[in-house]
């Protein structure tokens, strides 16, 4: 099996799993408990928090709140700060932001505004800025687009947004960027969402990085964990495993970045370009290659690849519902429905090998040619 759907989730880092195992079997205590054992765990959590945060941000200016996933982090950010006037985001966001913005409108909290995309999947910054005015309370721009891999320069965008309206709270969904891009948060970015399972962590663990001086109105309330910002007993094992996995990931981040970039180029150059069109920009995240078999259906290719042992993602579904059928992001880039229908998302991890890429090229070309022949 060749697994090239790492943008959906990655294989858990087994070494990190082993290291963190003690928090399942021996050190299972509640970190809020007052006896030594509990207190020790709370100290260990602090270390994990510091490891995860320090990789991309200045610990004196930022802090990390653990959540259950990237979606929760995005929702917490949106509902915590888009509380009046209008809120601005892009047409390319993950549904965790897109649906939350729709909810702002449904509940009459704030007017959602969507900035259009360039054809390469990045937000059109000029048009984004035009939507920001004195009534804007919240702006969210994703760091790496989860479908195309396009990179928004969020540090620069945050600065421009704050120049226009310094009261705006700026958030970025960094789920596809954290642990993959060489990057550090600028002080203009107030909030940043991360997720464990995209870099060898487990599902069910996420985090929201926030500027320290920012007061967060908690979305989940209860026992007052995470300094009252996110109640609920911490997933100690998941968090520790996340920290171990991230430690490893960041130690080879730059080398992986370059290597995967080459692999992605190899893959794209090996594909039959009379069948496949590339939608991902080559200067985007190397971990994602989005292509379209124009005129063919992405999901059918997905099944055919599946039968040959290649696991990839798609941007469309065999849905009779036209609303949910096509990727909104691909359409927002200005592509037509034929292109959108043929979308395949191939995504890598640092574990992806050259041999796998070579085999994937063979399979994709074969099924693409096969299906095109069958459809003629």
């Amino acid at each position, binding site marked *: 099996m060749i697994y090239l759907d790492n943008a959906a989730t990655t294989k858990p880092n087994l070494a990190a799993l082993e290291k963190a195992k003690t928090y399942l079997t021996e050190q299972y205590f509640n970190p809020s408990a007052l006896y030594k054992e509990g207190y020790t765990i709370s100290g260990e959590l602090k270390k994990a928090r510091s490891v995860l945060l320090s990789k991309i941000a200045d610990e004196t200016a930022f802090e990390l709140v653990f959540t259950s996933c990237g979606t929760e982090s995005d929702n917490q950010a949106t509902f915590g700060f888009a509380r009046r006037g209008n809120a601005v985001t892009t047409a390319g966001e993950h549904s965790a932001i897109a649906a939350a913005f729709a909810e702002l409108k449904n509940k009459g909290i704030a007017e959602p505004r969507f900035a259009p995309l360039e054809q390469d999947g990045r937000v059109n910054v000029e048009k984004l800025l035009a939507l920001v005015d004195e009534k804007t309370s919240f702006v969210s721009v994703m760091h790496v687009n989860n479908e195309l891999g396009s990179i928004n320069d969020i540090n620069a965008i945050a600065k421009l947004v704050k120049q226009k309206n310094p009261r705006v709270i700026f958030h970025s969904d960094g789920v596809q960027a954290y642990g993959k891009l060489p990057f550090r948060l600028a002080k203009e970015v107030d909030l940043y969402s991360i997720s464990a399972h995209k870099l060898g962590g487990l599902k069910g663990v996420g985090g929201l990085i926030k500027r320290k001086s920012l007061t967060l109105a908690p979305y989940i309330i209860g026992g007052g964990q995470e300094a009252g910002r996110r109640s609920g007993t911490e997933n100690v094992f998941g968090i520790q495993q996340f920290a171990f996995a991230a430690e490893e990931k960041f130690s080879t981040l730059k080398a992986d970045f370059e290597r995967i970039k080459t692999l992605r180029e190899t893959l794209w150059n090996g594909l039959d370009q009379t069948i496949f069109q590339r939608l991902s920009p080559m200067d985007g995240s190397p971990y994602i290659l989005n292509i379209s078999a124009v005129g063919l*259906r992405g*999901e*059918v290719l*997905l*099944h*055919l690849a*599946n*039968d040959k042992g290649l696991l990839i993602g798609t941007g469309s*579904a*065999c*849905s*009779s*519902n036209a609303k*949910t059928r096509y990727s909104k992001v691909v359409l927002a880039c200005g592509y037509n429905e034929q292109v959108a229908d043929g979308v395949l998302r191939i995504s890598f991890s640092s574990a992806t090998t050259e041999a796998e890429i070579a085999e994937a090229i063979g399979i994709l070309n074969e099924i693409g040619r096969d299906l095109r022949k*069958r*459809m003629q």
Partner: protein
Amino acid sequence: MKSGAICARECNKKVAKVKKVIIIRYAEIFLKKKNRGFFERAFENNMQRALKGYTYDLVKQSGRYLIENFQAEEAEEMLSKLQKVFGAHSFSIAQETSSDLDSIFEAAKSYCLESGTFKVDTHRGDKRYPLTSIEISREIGAKILEYAKGKLKVDVHNPSFTVHVDVRDHGKALVFGEFIDGANGMPVGTAGKGLLLLSGGIDSPVAGYMMAKRGLKVDCLHFHSYPYTNMQAKEKVVDLANILAEYTCGTRLYTVSVTHIQEAIHEKCKAELMITLLRRFMYRIAERHALHIGGQCLITGESLGQVASQTIEGMTSSNSVVEKLPVLRPLVGFDKNEIIERSVKMGAYETSILPFEDCCTVFLPDFPAIRPKLSEILREESKLDVEGLIAEAFATMEKMEI
């Protein structure tokens, strides 16, 4: 604390005293004379199957059944299972008491509303009972009036509620408030076996339901077009078969791939005949399979004129390949909204409308032939290796016990 505990125990005793019984009245079975036993046995088996996992006693009485000795708090749950068993006309959840008037009255009280009008309706199975039915009703009615202190009135023509009293043998009486509708129809398995062509849509599960209601045992056949359709579409059909199976006392779901047939038609035949030709293949496969599993008819969810392939010409074309079995189309005269109504009622609608394609739309022509001519169909079909394609389809068959 202590007195509270004692009180709780006493209350429990009081609750335990009330014995609940589910009364099951059967529907058309009572019309049967000499072979009634056959229908009753099937009905009993089907009820027992529906109540698998519960402890209870099923007692047969003339024209009805009683379910006794079950956990009182499971009554509603058991009833909802029984409501899916064809053959039952109605149910009541009754209290069993001794047949003296005071005990009957005690039970009757729990069925009284706070205010309004009522009547007492008595049925006296035990003819040795000293009072007649009318006298019993009168006595219980009088006790209720006294108990209600003027808040209730008797109205025998249009009461807001009725208390039913059923005086049985051995000094027992059943008291209950309402008649709950059963699924009616005939017990599944008493009318033979049919093979339902089950798609992922709204109509075919309803068609299966309708024929099971007339006593047919229903097995299902589903055609899919993997890789053009996805796993979710197949899963949806399994879900629908599970919903249907609650009414059909279980079912078998057979799935067959027709991808290669669609590809062959796409390659060799006129585009507008895709559906017409494909349906002929489906009917052929279905008939052969039905005969193989001992089925006596095919069942489809076709409704006249609903889509291009369900015109009378379309039906003629697909029907003409079925040689030995009748094709039952229980929905043929139904409007879509009538079908939807039944789908909602049987609990399939929510699943049926999930937006997964159940048959390939990749090969769908823009304008399918609405009134295909048989001569043209035969000419196009002659371009295909019909027997070879059918054999290939059978090789993909999978079976699932539900």
